[in-house]
């Protein structure tokens, strides 16, 4: 079986004709920026396999290293063509780093790469108008919270405050924040499961992905609740 690198040796550097590995943004041999590969995914940009558990410290180090090679500042005096490639490649690098360094963005990106349909965080403008289904175990708490939020909004509309109710809402918020952290932990646990499954060629990837989607939905739902409390209390 060819190694990942051999499989992708597909182009020659425009400048020195050395082979350029797929998704590589500059030539390893002469250092010149390469035409943008539209097909490169964010993991490939960093030379990573499609694993979810990432050491963000080394990701940052690599991001800085690549930035020094690709940033448009370095190409101010280069040809217009190289300037354009630098702009494209640097934006790809930045987009990749931004996505991979954040656990949730990384998980969502991974799922999309794997062809799983998900509701993307923040992208959907209708997000808050059309919240996803209430997770079953939260039904009661959510019902209670919405009652309290409505009451608080009415109180505040008249210019008043209700310290007891405020305290109740803050307590509820804390509980939801704890659940948010719990969900985050769970998502990271799913990363481990998936990365291990990949390593052992054990195929229950789809099942794990579905659990990830569910966890993300749950997270989004709780996050919106916390935001609602913050907005109502003006904190």
């Amino acid at each position: 079986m060819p190694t990942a690198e051999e499989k992708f040796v597909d182009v020659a550097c425009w400048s020195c004709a050395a082979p350029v590995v797929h998704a590589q943004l500059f030539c390893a041999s002469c250092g010149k920026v390469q035409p943008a590969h539209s097909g490169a995914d964010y993991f490939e940009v960093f030379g990573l396999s499609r694993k979810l558990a990432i050491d963000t410290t080394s990701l940052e180090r690599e991001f800085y290293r690549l930035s020094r090679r690709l940033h448009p500042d370095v190409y101010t005096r280069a040809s217009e063509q190289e300037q354009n490639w630098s702009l494209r490649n640097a934006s790809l690098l930045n987009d990749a780093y931004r996505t991979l360094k954040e656990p949730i963005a990384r998980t969502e990106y991974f799922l999309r790469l794997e062809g799983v349909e998900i509701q993307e965080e923040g992208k959907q403008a209708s997000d808050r108008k059309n919240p996803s289904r209430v997770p079953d175990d939260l039904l009661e708490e959510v019902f209670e919270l919405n009652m309290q939020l409505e009451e608080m909004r009415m109180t505040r509309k008249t210019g008043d405050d209700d310290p007891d109710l405020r305290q109740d809402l803050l307590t509820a918020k804390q509980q939801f924040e704890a659940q948010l952290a719990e969900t985050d932990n769970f998502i990271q646990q799913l990363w481990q499961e998936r990365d291990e499954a990949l390593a052992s060629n054990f195929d229950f990837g789809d099942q794990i992905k579905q659990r990830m989607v569910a966890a993300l939905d749950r997270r989004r739902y709780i996050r919106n609740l916390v935001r609602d409390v913050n907005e109502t209390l003006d904190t």
Partner: protein
Amino acid sequence: MAEERVIGIDLGTTNSLVAFMYNERPIVIPGEDGLNLVPSVVALDVQTDPTARPTVVVGNGAHKSLMLFPDRAVYSVKRLMGRGAEDVQDELKLFPFRLADNIQSGEVLRIRLGEMEFTPPEISAYILRQLKRNAERYFGGTVTKAVITVPAYFNDAQRQATKDAGRMAGLDVLRLVNEPTAAALAYGLDREKEGIIAVYDLGGGTFDISILKLQDGIFEVIATNGDTHLGGDDIDNLLIALAIDDIRGDLGVDVRSSAEAIQAIRKAVIEAKIELSSADSSRLEVELPEGHHYCREITRVQLEALIKPVLERTIGPVRQALRDSGLTSEQIGEVVLVGGSTRIPAVRHVVDNLFQLAARGKKPHTELNPDEVVALGAAVQANILAGGSKATEDMLLLDVTPLSLGIEALGGVVAKIIDRNSTIPASSTEHFTTGVDGQTNVAIHVLQGERELAKDCRSLARFDLKGIPPMSAGLPRIEVRFLIDANGILHVSAREQRSGKQAEVEVKPTYGLTDEQVETMILESFDYAEEDFHVRQVIEARNEADTILAAVEKAPQHPAWQQLSAEERTEIARLDRELLGIKQGDNLPAIRQATEALDKATRRFAELMMDQAVSSAIQGETMESASTKLGQGPTAPHEIAPAEFK
């Protein structure tokens, strides 16, 4: 030494500066008057000749006009950059901007200055051109490349307007750098700093807060926030309002409609404000028109109470930037103060409270002059872009976009496509389709801002995706790529994926100038025309002088010469020598004057020669030979009356 000279420019609301890296250190290049700060004031010279095109004066020279002829001068024009008539209404109440009457919605503003009109980028271009000239005089050579700083919180339109201004001034703007980031670069040059710093930048008209991570020469901006309409100007306006109230109450005079009085008050309150940063009280004294005199004491305590609401407006953006960076104020290792307004003790107090500096045994950084630090940082970035030197070889700036980019979706809501605080360059690829069979156009509305509804965000541009191959509704798949470049400016490209056809993107920038418009406003071309005209006039005047000098040289050979008195001949000789000297120079009026003087002195000689020529004609010579003889004498530039035949 870098290969080419790239200058760093701080184009400020109140003052502008130009700086350059010299021997590994950034230095500010002074103007002809020896001063580092060029006031961002542009004025039209008062013309004695109504037909001549007025001259534009910039800086300290224009300051005088501001006091004497307020309708011919403009300041704080940065507040109008990239903005439309509907978003400057508040500005117009506080600043003596006189807008042209017929500005359409979505159109670029035009400011009236005397009898002329200018767009804000043109006014800024005059300031930039002055800085460029200052640099050129300093170097003794041309400068064509520059880095210009902008407030970090400037939106796309404001950035584009600044870039346009640079082009009009004949500058290739290699990069727009955010002001707080530039300040961080200037400070970062000094020390091997690692860690998290915050830059609090309160200038004349804008406020920025940026949080950066410094590591191994990388300056990574983590979060930025601000208010592009908050600064020292606002403090001045509060003081002016106070004085106007006083004057009405005490003297019974309403000075609101007197631009001269307002400018006099403005000057006085700025002086008092500055004094109150070091003194506990100051005297506000203004001579008003019609012999009125206004005078009052103002204490620092009073000033602080008055400006508290202005200073508190900086707290929200700081908190938001901290939230966005995921850091608490205690995690901020160092705070850098930038902008003249940070000299105010009350501002330092706000900063101290925000970051608990004193409580942590820390002090904000003020070692570099807060008026100059941004320009110095611009020079550092200019040096990096010019190829770098030893001092900057490891430095790299990774900045962010201050505002989220979005597209208007169904129902007027905004779908975010690039979040604020994304490292730039940043991009996003979105897919669009058609809603009607055979539809060939799709309109896209791009916005910038954090609000959920399109009407509350800043409209950047409306794009028409044209030339989509006619297909059933929903079948075309148009891929649109939005790219924010390293200047924070948006670029858009589109492609219909099924046909692979490049869809045409027609950009209609809101409140922006088209490329063609910018082209017509380039000052340099106008400048050259101006210069060319002057050079041509000097050449013509020299030619005139040469003609008369040549004639005088031959004059003694002519019999008429003998008819002149000794005094007349001495006078002609004296004026001849004088003109010979003056015509070597470029002084057009002097050349003309000396030519005229010599011409006048030789007029009697010309007449005598003329008489002789005419009499020879009568003696049988032909007119032809007579005129040949005339040609040998000092004819031109004399106006010769038609010969009278007796």
